[in-house]
């Protein structure tokens, strides 16, 4: 056995020394014990309360255990075929990842080297910034303008070492989006000099007609990469599966950094069945609409400022620390997302859950605000 202390100071890169590991929340049984609450409604991860589409659910129920011993398709062959058919593209224009987070890493690894940077907003999904920084690349952040991505600020932030621009459309957590005209205008100004990633994790929730389908722009802009996920609308978050699409030449580069066999068989099969269930999308949209229609008047009544855009979530501004509100709501059996980490101090984000969960949230929030005043 070696008795020498590991020289971590010398072994660990500087950018890792200054990076803090993300600590996910504990499992429900542990949280219930800690906070003394039961039931516990999770309204923190923007999960779909309706569950997966029925056909995908059937795949899970009837999964043959013997298949667990067999490696999955290394590159999700059948799913890529189905995506190609759905979007009228070549199967090689798709890469499937273990959740969309993995495909973010693929793209950054493919295009960035020492000294390079990415550009994104300061108040958006944190994973673009995190992956860039713990990979040793800097993230140039631009402030939001009226809760939305500021195209001009992003263009100004580009320098000679900028490789990728990340836009979350609609934005998590604000729900704002660029319409087709704004997106095309932005792509024209970038003029193919950098890779532009449009993360459409929540696109299936948007009903407005001016919302752009970035997939349709791929043939026009070969530097465009589109992210989508099966975690949100298709409710397969527990299986971890997402994908990216781009031009053949760009995807060919990204594929070189792609970890094959990272997506399991169950996830591939369920995603394949979920893909074309438009009724599921409609049912989910109806539910979100109904629950937002119940929630927003309550927020008005409580005198709380809120930001409700597209997507299955609403941001609420509180007259108290959001991390304190998190603990107090947890003690009442409701888990929300505190927004200090998104650089929205004293805001919380609540996911639209089941009617029962939303009723519990409404009651807990009302009590919290009444106790505060």
């Amino acid at each position, binding site marked *: 056995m070696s008795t020498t202390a590991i020289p971590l100071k010398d072994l660990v890169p500087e950018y890792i020394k200054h990076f803090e590991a993300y600590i996910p929340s504990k499992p429900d049984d542990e949280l219930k014990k*800690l906070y003394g609450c039961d039931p516990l409604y999770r309204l923190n991860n923007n999960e779909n309360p309706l569950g997966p589409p029925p056909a995908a659910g059937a795949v899970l129920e009837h999964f043959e255990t013997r298949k667990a011993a067999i490696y999955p398709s290394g590159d999700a062959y059948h799913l890529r075929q189905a995506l190609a058919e759905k979007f009228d593209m070549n199967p090689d224009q798709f890469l499937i990842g273990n959740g969309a987070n993995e495909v973010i890493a693929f793209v950054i690894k493919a295009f960035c080297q020492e000294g390079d940077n990415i550009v994104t907003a300061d108040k958006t999904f944190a994973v673009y910034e995190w992956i860039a920084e713990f990979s040793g690349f800097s993230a140039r952040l631009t402030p939001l303008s009226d809760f939305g991505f500021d195209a001009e600020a992003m263009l100004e932030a580009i320098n000679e070492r900028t490789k990728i621009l990340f836009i979350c459309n609609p934005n998590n957590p604000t729900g704002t989006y660029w319409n087709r005209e704004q997106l095309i205008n932005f792509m024209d100004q970038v003029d193919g000099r950098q890779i532009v990633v449009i993360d459409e994790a929540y696109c299936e929730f948007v009903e407005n007609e001016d919302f752009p389908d970035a997939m349709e722009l791929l043939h026009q802009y070969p530097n465009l990469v589109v992210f989508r996920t099966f975690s949100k609308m298709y409710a397969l978050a527990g299986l971890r599966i997402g994908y990216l699409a781009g031009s053949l030449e760009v995807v060919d580069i990204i594929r070189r950094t792609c970890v094959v066999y990272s997506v399991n068989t169950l996830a591939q099969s369920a995603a394949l069945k979920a893909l074309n269930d438009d009724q599921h999308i409609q049912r989910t949209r109806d539910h979100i609409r109904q629950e937002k229609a119940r929630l927003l008047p309550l927020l008005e009544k409580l005198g709380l400022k809120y930001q409700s855009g597209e997507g299955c979530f609403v941001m609420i501004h509180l007259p108290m620390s959001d991390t304190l509100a998190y603990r107090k709501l947890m003690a009442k059996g409701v888990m929300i997302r505190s927004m*200090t980490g998104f650089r929205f101090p004293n805001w919380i984000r609540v996911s639209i859950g089941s009617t029962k969960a939303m009723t519990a949230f409404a009651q807990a929030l009302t009590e919290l605000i009444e106790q505060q005043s």
Partner: protein
Amino acid sequence: MINQPQRQARLTIKDDLAFLPTVQTFVEKTALAFGLGQTEALALTLAGEEIFNYLCTQVKPEAEIEISCYNGGYYAALEFILPIRNLAMRTFNLTATINIDDENSLDEMGLLLASRMVDHLQIGQNDNGRLQLLLRKEKSYPKTTATNRAPSKPATKNFSIITPEAEELKFFISESHHYTSPELLPQEFSYPGKIVDMVKAGDYQAAIVRDSTGRIGGGIIWYWSSTKMVECYGPFILADDTTPSISPELRQTMAEALLEYCLNAIARSPAVGLLNRSPSPDLPQHHFETLGTVLEYHNTSLPTERPSLFRQMQEDPGAVTWTDPNFEPFLRSEYQRLTLPREIRLTSDSGENRADFSVLASEFDRARHKVTLRPLWAGNDMEKNIADHLTLFTREGLDNIFFIIDLGQSWQAAFGPALRENSFTPRLLLPHGGKGDLLILQKTEPKKTESVS
């Protein structure tokens, strides 16, 4: 904590007194090269000499001592590092080699002598588990003369929050004396040049309100007080109640914007919390929770009761807390008040063998007459060891004595009875400030207090 020193010089040497002149020359020349004045460089050299002398008498022969001198911009720091295997653990104790009952012996105590010559002395273990003695001597700076000037015109509502340039920062610091009670301003605010150097060194960060005409409306300063905790001063708004052109709403908007700027700057960092130990009247208190108060003893006047405000930067994941039963009522009450989910586990002495000697790490802040003790090792002499340290501190005129227990480290709970016997009182809890929550205890005297709100 040394924050990315700009320059560093290192000397590795055997613990042999024959090398004393080498150490003296190394420290003096390096300190001068790093910008200390003659007086400060001499003080640091003398302190270094005392430490080296002390280590040569305590450390096993032929041990290698690593001596580093850092340029912190506004200070020079001297660090001695050596493996623990080369010395008795008791050496960590300030009181290890002196007869506490003999006042003359105090003057023979190298560590204590060194502590008198520098602004900051820290004895403890570094990240690699080696003994670390860290001394810091600051440069001298001229005191602000802002109080002699007429106050500036207040900023208007068309403002933005920016990182100030050096002159803007000095202006903000100097002007803050016009509008804020002296007891709410940190001591460093008397030396604007020092703050500029602290910001340059990366130890402090600052933001100010600047309006479209270039007027400065206020500011905030923050810094990392440990690897997990950020503390802030302010916000301080440069206007008083009688200033006609600044409404209470505008004042509040500026303060809120300054605080949010600070919060956003540390939002995706390892910071678990933001602490404010001197809440200014402009601090937007709805962002914070009150943790408790500490008493601030001054030489002659009554102690001041000072509240500590805190906000978590991350969602609380829950934790296990180990404590001696003495502190259980305090902890239960505080955890309930703060809605902190904790599993409290009580410890007890079950007759198991323990080391003969306990070990305490000391951190001096002489400018504030303050010393902080942390346990490094539990032992049978805990009560006496603490009492000896207290005797020493009292003789040194240090009135503000704190003891910090990491409730996430079960062995530290053994200090509970000894702390109670030595009149330490739990004052506040710092959630996730260490491996677990930190319990901050203070040596208190039954005196009357004044409160600051």
